[in-house]
């Protein structure tokens, strides 16, 4: 299975962002984390790509997942 590109757009204060990153770490998924509270370019990119403003936003090979939705993340990442 080819490795998927995973981007996480998060804020430092958001509990579900921490939960998502903890879950990705536990499943040994490599991802890039963007702190949209400080990184304005990443913030605008997140809004442009996902057409919404909520965090965490996870983009998996271009597919957008908003929030910590374990069944959907598993499906997109091919985790059983």
């Amino acid at each position, binding site marked *: 299975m080819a490795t998927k590109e995973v981007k996480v757009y998060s804020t430092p*204060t*958001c509990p579900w962002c921490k939960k998502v990153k*903890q879950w990705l770490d536990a499943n040994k998924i490599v991802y890039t984390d963007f702190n949209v509270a400080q990184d304005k370019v990443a913030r605008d990119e997140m809004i442009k790509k996902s*057409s919404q*403003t*909520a*965090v965490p936003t996870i983009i998996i090979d271009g597919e957008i997942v908003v929030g*910590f939705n*374990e069944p959907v993340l598993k499906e997109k990442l091919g985790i059983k």
Partner: protein
Amino acid sequence: MTAAVYAARKRLGAVLISKDIGGQPMWTGRIENYMGYQYIEGFELMSKFEEQMKQFPLEQKIGPQAVSLGRIGSGFEVETDGGEKYQAKAVIVASGKRPRTLNVPGEEQFKGKGVTYCSVCDGPVFAGQKVAVIGGGNAALEAIDDMVKIAERVYVVSVTPFTGDQVLVERVQVAKNLTEFMEHEVLSISGDRLVNGIEIRDLKTGEKKKLDLSGIFVEIGLNPNSDLVKGLTTLNEQGEIVVNCRNETDVPGLFAAGDVTNVPEKQIVISAGEGAKAALQAHKYLQRL
């Protein structure tokens, strides 16, 4: 989670069904009144709860949401949104509360597109922008306190004067970038792809006003997640499940605990205690069968 731990320790053969782990405390940044921790974040405390729960033999179904609960003989059947069915002799409902919505035009359309119910999560996304906080209680005041530090301007719109703690009111009112619209109501939310404004009305004069902004934080309280048992057991005027001091509803074998019930004071420490009580009562009920 406390009910699950107590049920597991009593070897009740319990199944925990929940769309997520953590519930409302996950939306709470700072916790200073849960005993044993002088200061802990909601996420961290819930991680500790989860870790502790995993020490006990318990079947966990996390992800599916229970959508219906009915009687089968003297027991119950729970169905999830995925169509899975579970039968049980006793059920504990500990489904908590969810943010109350404004129910105005545009709110549903712009949910997550500028309208948010979690200022602790999404607040920093609106740094340098104009935002409105809707509400006048403690949750609204905390959202204002966070946002005046990072937003260009913060409007507060509330149907009442501030009702939260005076210490918080005084703290936010010194901010130069706060504009108050007290005793005003929100009429509608507008936008294109994302939110770009709201229309409000002065409740005293009837005067309408439009505010240009990009973020709206709705902090007007919570509604109980009691739809599951509507029609099965008694709810009070607020939609909370009515229980007695033993966490029993008026349906034998159906127990409830925490913020979804009519128990006064919604606190993590209280909900945890209520969860423990409900599981112990369920154990006694099962022993009597």
